């Protein structure tokens, strides 16, 4: 992971040097601009995530046991108890947003209905581990670096060209491909962090079995739905089968591997 992190830093350093050279910006301005860019992405991202699913607070009276377990695990992981929210997402799902002192965990109504209390605890412990390990912030930072490098690459192409249609097109294409390339490294970190969050969740609740069961239950349900909905779409996607390149461009490791590791 240190190697992948260094590569990401190298991408950012090259972009920063180009901005300093081309626009004559001092280093302090480049750093300030980068922090502002990532900060705005973080703030907007958190707000958008909660708004897009219509998340509402999960009242303590509705799920007192769940609140108690989350509070206990949060204490063990040395983070403030995150805000617990619930949303209608149409599928069993959960995600965490925010940072250690101001985290939020959202669970879907479908997840609450699908899992038993222990399995739900496993899922929540995994999400708490993401907050404790600053994974949400790390992903925002990774996306920020990818976006900055892509924007710089785009501008370099634009500023060195003749401003004809081929140049505009080349700038857009180079920006997109650069972002994809940098994100390959961010995805690698993300997959690694998923395993770490699984391991931390297993340590927190004393066993990996509840989370393994939860993943198994959810993926079995997903397989049934996938065969009904997505057969024609998957026919168009050569990466849809979870093969080598699909793994490279995934934020999560394969569910089977996670279950296997949780049970080891």
């Amino acid at each position, binding site marked *: 992971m240190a190697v992948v992190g260094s590569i990401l830093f190298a991408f950012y350093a090259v972009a920063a040097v180009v901005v300093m050279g081309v626009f004559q910006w001092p280093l302090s301005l480049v750093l300030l601009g980068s922090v502002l860019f990532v900060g705005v*992405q973080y703030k907007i*991202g958190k707000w*958008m*995530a909660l708004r*897009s*699913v219509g998340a509402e607070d999960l009242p303590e009276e509705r799920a007192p046991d769940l609140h108690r377990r989350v509070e206990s695990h949060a204490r063990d992981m040395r983070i403030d108890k995150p805000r617990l929210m619930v949303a209608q*997402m149409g*599928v*069993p*799902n*959960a*995600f965490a*947003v925010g940072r250690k002192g101001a985290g939020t965990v*959202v669970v879907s109504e479908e997840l609450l209905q699908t899992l038993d209390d222990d399995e739900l605890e496993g*899922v929540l412990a995994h999400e708490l581990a993401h907050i404790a390990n600053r994974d949400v912030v790390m*992903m*925002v*930072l*990774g*996306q*920020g670096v*990818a976006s900055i490098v892509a924007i710089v690459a785009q501008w370099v192409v634009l500023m060195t*060209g003749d401003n004809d*249609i*081929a*140049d505009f*097109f*080349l700038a857009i*294409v*180079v920006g*997109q*491909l650069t*972002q*994809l390339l940098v*994100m390959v490294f*961010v*995805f690698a970190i*993300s997959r690694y962090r998923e395993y770490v969050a699984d391991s931390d969740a297993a340590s927190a609740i004393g066993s990996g079995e509840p989370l393994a069961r*939860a*993943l198994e239950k*959810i*993926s079995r*349900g*997903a397989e049934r739905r996938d065969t009904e*909905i*997505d057969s024609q*779409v998957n026919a*168009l*996607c*050569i*990466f*849809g089968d979870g093969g080598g*390149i*699909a793994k490279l*461009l*995934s*934020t*999560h490791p394969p*569910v089977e591997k*996670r279950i296997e590791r949780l049970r080891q």
Partner: protein
Amino acid sequence: MADVRTLLAVALGALLGVLCLVAPEAIVRAQTAGRRPDGRGGEYGADAVATRWRRLVQVVGVGCLLVAAYVASTAL
């Protein structure tokens, strides 16, 4: 004869177009990871992307191929 930048525009544009057509999920994830919660189009622990986003990226891919073909036809 077309210059190097025009050739690059055609080649990379076609590459991006093909990528959008065959791997729309990767393109969506590259844009949304860190900005939106994971697995919004699918289940917990999965890496799914909603069908409508995949379709949109595939349409953009066709657009890329068309622009690449236009640039090629005017320059070559």
